[in-house]
């Protein structure tokens, strides 16, 4: 049944959120974001199946492309971060502090 796919998507998405807000390791945070993207992808594909239209598939591909681009940039940033601070902690950066 389609509902089970959507429930799964919700669970994965929520887990992604939890990962983002509870962890300080940059890699984990980054992969949690990927997890949320994947949850969305699952929903896309599921809806594509329901409507029997493949637009959802196309969107899922776009999301993958974005994820790839994001991965490239994010990892570059992580490398820089590690170079400068030798840390993988997001709390190292607090420039926004008021």
């Amino acid at each position: 049944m389609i509902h089970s796919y959507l429930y799964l998507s919700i669970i994965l998405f929520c887990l992604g959120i939890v990962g983002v807000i509870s962890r300080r390791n940059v890699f984990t945070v980054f992969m949690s974001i990927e997890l949320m993207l994947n949850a969305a992808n699952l929903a896309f594909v599921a809806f594509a199946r329901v409507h029997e239209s493949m637009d959802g598939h196309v969107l899922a591909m776009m999301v993958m492309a974005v994820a790839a681009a994001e991965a490239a940039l994010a990892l570059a940033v992580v490398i820089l971060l590690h170079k400068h601070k030798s840390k993988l902690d997001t709390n190292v950066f607090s420039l926004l502090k008021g």
Partner: protein
Amino acid sequence: MGQSVHYLGLIPLFPLMGAVFIGLLHVFTCKNAKLPEKVYGLLACVGPVLSFVMALKVFFQLKALPVDARFLSHNAFTWFSVGDLHINMGFLADPLSCLMLLFVTLIGSLIHIYSIGYMSGDKNYGKFFAYMNLFLGSMLVLVLGDSPVVMFVGWEGVGLCSYLLISFYSEDTNNVLAGNKAFIVNRIGDLGFVLGMSFLFWGIGASGFDYLSLKANIHHLTPAIALTVCLLLFVGATGKSAQIPLYVWLPDAMAGPTPVSALIHAATMVTAGVYMVARFSFLYAHVELAGDIVAWVGILTALLAAIFGMFQNDIKKVLAYSTVSQLGYMFAGVGVAAYSAGIFHVFTHAFFKALLFLGAGSVIYAMHHEQNIWKMGGLKAKMPKTYLTMVIGALALAGCPPFSGFFSKDEILFSALATGHYGIWAVGLLVACMTAYYTFRMIFVVFHGEPRDQHAFDHAKESPAVMTVPLIILAVGAAFAGFLNMPGVQTVSHWLAPSLTEHHPHASSFVLVFAMATSIVAFLVGIKIAYSKFGKGAAEPVFSGFEKFAYNKFYVDELYNAVIVQPYKAVGSSIWKTIEPNVTDGPVKAVTRLYMMIGTAFKVFQVGYVRIYAIYMIVGLSLMSLFLSQSLN
């Protein structure tokens, strides 16, 4: 209507042009190439003399006209016109302004000629003459203006020039302060004048704001407004003509060069107030209460100034207080509705006061700018011409028959008596006695007795002809001008009659003779006391008690300083040091502070960790979800 003549506008224009021309010449040459003094002197005298010639022409043209139609006018252009307000740059010559015109230009010219000698060697020679010409030009605008507004141009103009000339030696702070004082005190009077004009305009000005239209519509004015206007205009007059309470600037005005003092005191400026009241005689004759106030203020000023005059050591200060005192007489005259008497006293006073000032200038010049009378003495022998002319002036001032001052002063006292103002007459008589005393005190101390400063005495010598000739001309005027209006002849009164709204009091010849006799007695008493105290030479007195109080002018300057000037300054500094930042700017600052406080409060949440911001977002989202899932069912 009277004739329109185009050359009326030229009369003030000559000196004004002269002022502009000399001024520019001075400004552009004073740094590099100095022009010879003669050029300036000659240029400076051209304007006043030409004006005098024109004034004579006006006089003869007026004289040729029938008595009722004796006025000439010239409307140069529309000055400004808005709504009901139409002001022309118009000039009016009637017997009153013609008389003023004649002696202002005559005495002005003489003072200019005299200044050529007096000012020689001054580094700002050109500037001086530019100001002098401007001064005379402004006075002529004042005299000739055909509406109060045009008069006001001259009125402020002479105020400005007095400021410029009093602070002429501008390196000395005291001189500049005196100039400031003159201008500011005059401005206080001008405020009255402007407000008076405003009330007058809203009262009856809509159908024309020149003197002739005002005179024609005067009966439309309600009594309350008329009184307001009279008093406000008189405030203006007290400023310009140095009456209580605004007389304080005139004695300080001695800071300027002596010819300036002569010009201010004799020909221009201070007489403007009297002239203005006479000009508005149609209004003041309407409001008896205003006249009484004017008369009383005048005579009290006369008394006060005479008291001060008796104890001054500076030759020019003595003369200055005598001017204030004489001006008081004039106001007493116009106040009791004897306008022609007042104006006549202006006329004679112009001669003898110019004479006395120029004579004093001559003495000061000879004594190398020493003004303290207790450093002089015995100058009679060294400066006979100056001595002789000064004595004539002093006799005229003191009211000795048959010199001019006697007739004019007596006319005023007689008018006061005849109109039933006995109080004014009595005070006037007392002042006459005091006048004789302080005038001859000065003469005796300066010219008689032994020289007190031998060194200065040895170097003193008679002034050059360019200075003494004007003295002699003025002395002739001071001696004989009085006959023009002696009882029974009354030439001046008749001449002025068409311009003034006045009723000659009918009094018996006994009153006339009584007034004359008392005046003569007062004069004799005054001179007797002076002679007995100073005739044989006297040492500089040490003042104590009342004398000291009077010598310090009853501490009026100090009083004004403490009551007005200092509080004003204090308010000024408290405004921008206390009120401005705390009260006026307070709400603005409070708003700023409020924002700062809110900002600080919210700063707590700005921890700087992106993760925490994400938590805020998720918590918000979560709360929204809670809310939305309830509404979903």
